[in-house]
């Protein structure tokens, strides 16, 4: 078990990697590792950090987000509410709006990720959120996305 100082240094290094690593092209899902870890979603090419979360499988979680299925994915509904909602037609079906959300994400969102054992996720995630200040997180509960 690392000491508090060791853990803080480890998290700092992880967050630096999350912020500085080249963003993954979302279409290239095979390049995303299947291991557990933290991931960050960015607007355009790392212009603005939108969202930070943990995943049991980074590839599965990011693939699920990119389906645009707002009823299954917190990132997708937050992107819809912030960016896609003004672009939809009033009469559009749920399926059509999910598709629009997916297309918007593929055009505008990139990801970075770092491997991290699951037992470290809660503490590391709350540190990462505090440092990176993702813009789509709940302002009053910064450690939680929902």
């Amino acid at each position, binding site marked *: 078990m690392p000491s508090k100082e060791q853990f803080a240094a480890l998290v700092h290094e992880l967050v630096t990697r999350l912020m500085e690593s080249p963003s993954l092209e979302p279409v290239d899902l095979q390049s995303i590792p299947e291991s557990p870890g933290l991931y960050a979603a960015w607007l355009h090419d790392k212009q603005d950090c939108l969202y930070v979360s943990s995943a049991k499988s980074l590839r599965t979680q990011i693939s699920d987000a990119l389906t645009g299925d*707002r*009823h*299954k*994915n*917190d990132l*997708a*509904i*937050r992107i819809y*509410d*912030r960016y896609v*909602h*003004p672009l*939809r037609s*009033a009469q*559009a*079906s*749920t*399926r059509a*709006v999910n598709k629009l959300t997916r297309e918007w994400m593929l055009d505008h969102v990139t990801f970075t990720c770092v491997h991290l054992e699951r037992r470290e996720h809660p503490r590391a995630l709350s540190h990462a959120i505090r440092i990176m200040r993702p813009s*789509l997180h*709940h*302002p009053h509960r910064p450690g939680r996305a*929902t």
Partner: protein
Amino acid sequence: MSYQDLADQISQAPAAGLAQRRSLPNVSGIYAVWLDDKTELLSLGRTAKLRRAIDALYTKPRQSSMMALRLYDKYVHPLRPPQASTEDVNALTRRWIAEHIHFTYVEVPWPDTQQALRELLHALQPAVHAGRL
């Protein structure tokens, strides 16, 4: 009981709302989701635990409930302020559902619910069910 009897029963039962959900039995069955006081049948579902399913209908946010998302897209979307946060839109959706959504149900043994739901979907044609988006 025939499927026509089930369709009649679920259509003619008095509609219940948010206030009645806690007194529901936790039994298996088919439930119907209605707009306002049964002006339109929106959806049908099957469940092993009725109370839990109805509770989810009134409480789950859009990012974990297909029904809440469909109701948002069809009815709540025009009412939201353009800059509202996800939390605000979820709260607005929850309030709209509490005010406008009612339900009826029939108890059906769990192994029979799949076939019963299929027959009832065919007979009653709900407006926002998965196949009709």
